[in-house]
């Protein structure tokens, strides 16, 4: 993410250039469309999808609202983001369950996409939901593929059917189905060998497996790093085997994952789940709006907020929020915020999730100690001072500085920070009246 600065920044740069002109010219719009086109292509979105999107977006952007807006750059980003979210979202993305009580999921994809790891993760997820899954590996090609699945199955305590002496994948799948029913399991997850769509023999094998176990869901496993070929791969698999949805893996990397958009658009099939790490529990439900922001390189505010929501004391946050709205934000509140922020983990991590910081933060280390220093300064104040910082005269500041082991400059910096926060906060509370609840709650969590 740090490599390419976000699209919003680029668009904003174009906007800055036109500041004072009063209105956007056709040329400005064209420049913006070019930036959007480049951003999408750099994110590995399929060129045909890019072409379509650009047309849709520029049609919308030509509406009067954009032209009149003070921040056309942001407006356009919003249009793009909405368009992407719409494509990515939409239809139901829950995994189908067979009403007769025994469900079969078949996982397939290119080599190295992460099928085996995903199979085990899926088993873990189902088990967590109270299901009784059984795994099987019908990969008779890659050395030790079956062992890999077996080890992972053991780690999540899920049965795994392996038959290393059998070389016919469809037969193993049938045996696994029988074993699953015998063990009173309710879901079979079939992990298949990686293949390319142009390998006829392998495609025939996949067809045979599908015929043998009649999967309720045929899931394509897609590496988030895949390039322009993604669409062809998905279409070919769909043509020969059938495709019900896909799971995107390695999203914990920094690939933009434009393939998600391309495949969704070109096949119409939903993204069911996403893999977020090497650990077995790192599998998540797919969130269209997050993926849209990611493709545009705009950071992941939603994840940040969710992470914050998990760590932050709900009641305290609510209290702060109320105080913010009433303009009663004091230094005591600020101290509590510092403490909560510290609970969230490293600043570097958090900043990387904020939109627009990608480029700017490159190389700059966030001073984690700054928070500690500020906290110490506030702790050296009396409650009266914390509630009403206006009374902080020179002698009080001097006392606070020596009490907290900092300098008067540090104390002044903190007060300045506090003033800025209050100013910012007023802007946000102003916006909240216009219904921008998202921004407000984001700020209420400490940003």
């Amino acid at each position, binding site marked *: 993410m740090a490599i390419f600065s976000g699209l919003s920044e680029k668009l904003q740069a174009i906007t800055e250039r036109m500041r004072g002109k009063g209105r956007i010219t056709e040329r400005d719009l064209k420049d913006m469309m070019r930036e959007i086109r480049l951003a999408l292509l750099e994110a590995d979105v399929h060129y045909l999808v890019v072409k379509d999107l650009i047309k849709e977006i520029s049609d919308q952007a030509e509406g009067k609202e954009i032209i009149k807006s003070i921040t056309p750059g942001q407006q356009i980003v919003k249009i793009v983001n909405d368009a992407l979210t719409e494509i990515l979202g939409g239809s139901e993305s829950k995994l189908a369950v067979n009403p007769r009580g025994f469900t079969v999921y078949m996982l397939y994809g290119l080599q*190295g996409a*992460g099928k085996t790891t995903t199979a085990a993760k899926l088993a873990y997820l189902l088990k967590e939901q109270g299901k009784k899954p059984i795994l099987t590996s019908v990969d008779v090609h890659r050395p*030790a593929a079956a062992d*890999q699945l077996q080890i992972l199955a053991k780690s999540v305590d899920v049965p795994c059917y392996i038959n290393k002496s059998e070389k016919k994948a469809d037969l193993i799948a049938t045996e696994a189905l029988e074993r699953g029913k015998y063990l009173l399991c309710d879901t079979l997850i079939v992990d298949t060998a990686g293949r390319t*769509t142009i390998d006829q023999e392998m495609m025939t094998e996949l067809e045979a497996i599908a015929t043998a176990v009649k999967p309720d869901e045929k899931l394509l496993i897609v*590496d988030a790093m895949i*390039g322009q*070929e993604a669409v062809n791969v998905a279409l070919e698999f769909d043509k020969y085997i059938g495709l019900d949805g896909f799971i995107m893996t390695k999203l*914990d990397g920094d690939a933009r994952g434009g393939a998600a958009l391309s495949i969704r658009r070109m096949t119409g099939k939903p993204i069911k789940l996403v893999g977020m790490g090497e650990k077995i529990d790192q599998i998540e439900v797919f969130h269209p709006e997050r993926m849209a922001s990611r493709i545009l390189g705009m950071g992941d505010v939603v994840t940040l907020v969710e992470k914050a929501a998990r760590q932050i004391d709900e009641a305290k946050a609510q209290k702060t929020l109320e105080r913010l709205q009433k303009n009663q934000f004091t230094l005591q509140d600020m101290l509590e915020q510092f403490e909560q922020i510290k609970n969230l983990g490293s600043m570097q991590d958090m900043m990387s999730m904020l939109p627009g910081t990608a480029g700017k933060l490159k190389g700059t280390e966030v001073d984690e100690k700054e928070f500690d220093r500020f906290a110490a300064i506030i702790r050296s104040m009396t409650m009266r001072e914390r509630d009403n910082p206006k009374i902080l005269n020179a002698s009080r500041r001097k006392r606070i500085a020596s009490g907290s082991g900092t300098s008067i400059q540090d104390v002044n910096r903190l007060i300045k920070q506090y003033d800025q926060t209050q100013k910012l906060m007023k802007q946000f509370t102003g916006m909240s009246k216009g219904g921008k609840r998202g921004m407000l709650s984001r700020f209420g969590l400490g940003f």
Partner: protein
Amino acid sequence: MSLLNKFRDGLSKTRQFVTEGFNRVAANFGIFDEDFLDELEMIFIQADCGIEVSTKLVESVRDNIREDGKVDREHVLSILRRDMLNILKTKAFTPDFSSLNVVFMVGVNGTGKTTTAGKIAYQFQKQGTKTMLAAADTFRAAAIDQLKIWGERAAVPVISNTLGTDPASVVYDAMQSAKARAVELLIIDTAGRLHNKPNLMSEMEKMHRVAAREGRDADAVIQNLLVLDATTGQNAVVQARSFNESVSLDGLIITKLDGSAKGGIALAVADEMSLPLIYAGLGEGIDDLANFDAELFVESLLPEA
């Protein structure tokens, strides 16, 4: 099938694709005008060459046309061929075996490091080089077993420990063992790691430090080869940059070129990093590995003149 043919065969899809595209736009436009150049750029982008390289290639064609006014098909093709070959630097992996040679296979998850390690070991063992494999991927379940199977196929000893041990300790063992047995080529298979995970990158740096330290008394030559999946999109450039920052890369291996992927990423990475392309992975078989042939690659990307 000879390796050369295999290489050609693996890229036949690409060739067909670009040729069709080229001919289509040539037919549509008749002459090589601006619209043609735009279409041409899209063809390269579709092959995953990336915007930078694609733009560069097309710009060069444009400049040439402007200069000499020649717009015939052969001329345009020859410019493209020349520029692509300028970007793609290749290097055969021919170590000097007067001392121990150590090769680290590095890359993100699922690019084919283990498979490629097995294939390289086989090639050198066959030539009579005293070769050894080390299973330093102690994270992925059964990665060690997978490499051991490759070791058996290639008749090459495999140094390993159990799942979960510090990979640097495997490197240490392998270095000791390689020195004691007067091994000429030690290939170290490492775990796939995403380049944006600092802890995993420092784990790799540690392995590297251990190898350098233990290899000093044997004048060991240590190389790092980045394994890239041909189906990867523009993230491959980021991968190469990050890995290079961590352990300084000596070359690239592009795998899965036998699939439908066009592998234009080879151009994007080679252009950005000025790293030589060493091998091309062409399938799951033990001898499905060819020296990267730039001429053939370019030939497959471009239609016949």
